């Protein structure tokens, strides 16, 4: 019974994720794309819940659906003055790109099918936040600090670029 619920939940969430992702790249209205992207992120966070990554699911919603989606919408609002109709056009060769992507997809599917996976039978870690925190502040300390510096650089850069561009 649990299995059945899990399976149904997976397919529903996967369908939401993929359908909204397709919407992001096919909708002609940029705002629709951005909203679908937020939906896609929520679907992905549902998948994380199924994968027992509860902390990550929360981070996904907070950072992606919250911050990133809002940033993108802000970007749209500040750069799009005319009507939103047809703000998301294709370039010259969508068919060719589709063929390339289909080929790439087939390659990835073959790789997925052909690789032998060594499943582990042990239980998933409970209480993920504390395990993650321990990893972040012990083993991955350098990466953690470097990421902090990266955020500082990005913040500084974003301010400098946006301000320098406007008050010329």
């Amino acid at each position, binding site marked *: 019974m649990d299995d059945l619920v899990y399976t149904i939940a997976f397919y529903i969430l996967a369908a939401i994720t993929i359908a909204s992702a397709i919407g992001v790249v096919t909708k002609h209205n940029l705002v629709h794309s951005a909203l679908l992207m937020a939906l896609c992120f929520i679907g992905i966070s549902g998948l994380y819940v199924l994968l027992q990554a509860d902390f990550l699911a929360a981070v996904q919603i907070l950072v992606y659906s919250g911050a990133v989606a809002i940033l993108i919408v802000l970007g749209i609002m500040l750069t799009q003055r005319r009507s939103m109709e047809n703000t998301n056009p294709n370039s010259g060769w969508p068919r060719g790109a589709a063929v390339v992507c289909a080929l790439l997809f087939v*390659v*990835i599917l*073959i*790789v*997925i099918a*052909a*690789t*032998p*996976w*060594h499943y582990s039978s042990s239980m998933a870690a409970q209480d993920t936040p504390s395990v993650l925190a321990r990893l972040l502040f*012990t*083993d*991955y*300390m*350098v*990466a953690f600090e*470097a*990421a902090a*510096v*990266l955020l*500082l*650089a*990005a913040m*500084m*850069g*974003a301010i*400098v*670029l946006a301000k*320098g*561009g406007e008050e*010329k």
Partner: protein
Amino acid sequence: MNITLLTSEIAIICLSLLIIILDLLLPRFETRRSLGYLAAAGVAGVFAYTCTQYGVSATVYQGLFTLDSFALFFKQIFLLAILLTLLFSFDYVEGLAKYQGEFYALLLLAVAGMMIMASANDLLTVFIGTELMTVTFYILVGYQFNSSKSSEAGMKYMILGSVSSAVLLYGVSWVYGCTGSIVFEQIAKHANTSLGMLFGFGLIVAGLFFKMALIPFHMWAPEIYEGAPTPITAMLSMGSKVAGLAVLLRMVFIAFVPMQAYWGGIVSIIAAITMIGGTVIAMWQTNIKRMMAYSSITQAGYMIVGLLSADASGIKSVLFYAMLYMFANVGVFATIIAVKKHHGSNEIKDFSGLAQQSPLLAVVMTVSLLSMAGIPPMAGFAGKLYVFSTVIEKGYLWLGLLGFVMSMISVYYYLNVTKVIYMNEPCVQKEFIVSQPLRIAALISLLATLWIGIYPGPLAELANTAARSLSIL
């Protein structure tokens, strides 16, 4: 646990933070040249400190961050590159409308990213180091606020760079899935040649080749080199490329040892088309920065050749080449900045009569270009000799010959610039100003290039020590 291994990175980041704070304290309209001097002095201090660290071989944080002579050698390349770049770009930065202090701070953060890349011993630290470097470069490429080319270049670099990061990460996820680890030694222990592993490895290498701008992953380089502020172009061609090389070397020779069977064929082909393509396209360029972009693509092709001989002598030749490539680049870009200041543009014809206006810079430019072309007695000759003799020993005679032919062809377009410098009359008659720091940087590059060319021994010895410290060999 020994945090002191991280001293040089921490020092660079603290220096950058100090500059940010001082920038706020300085009066608004005062020049930020003092901050530039502070940055240069700090970097020189850190460089002196790294010299004392040779011979150390230790790891910190469960082996995720390692400091050995190999990492140190690369760190010294980055520190020298940034030091000399700072020296020749004070005037350039002063010409920026505003945010000069932040410019220095961001430049230092990019270098911190490169240094982390050189020491990283797991895919996560590699990734964060790479991103720290590239995200900072996205900003710096778009830093020239009065030029639309600069914002265009920044945007394009940002898009292509993010896509390449995503591809690299997708590869990382596959490697993690196939080996269950992201630490290099663990990956080597669990490495298999399953399809997923090969796929992941291929994507990671493609991502790194993008950072190094090897053909066919080079599309971004010419435009971004042209649009970026010149000091950033210099740092892109020295830092980004060499840092990618550092990661690639450590990864291939520690983590992906079983993959080397698949490695030779692909890398030799990529090296070949990179050398041919870069050389041929460079001949048609009229903009010096674009020409340098293609030239640096070719140079990266030469460096990658050394990877084919998977032993200490091959790595040694690559390290040696990376160092002399850095010095030659400094000479060229210092001259480009001086000429740009004089003429306001970067066309090759602007170099007309440089020999009369500034004999020193004319000599520096000539020596640096000839070093890149591999003419004795310049350093480039010794470098190419090391690189190609090691691969010929490994049976890649055709690649050695190809490299030789391409070097000969590249002499043509390098000499073309030299011809403009010496044969043509100056087109603008006004005083040619060379600032003192720029003169020093150019002089250091000139002396280093000649000295390495005539006495390659000491540097080769150092490179050898560094190569041997890559423990697996």
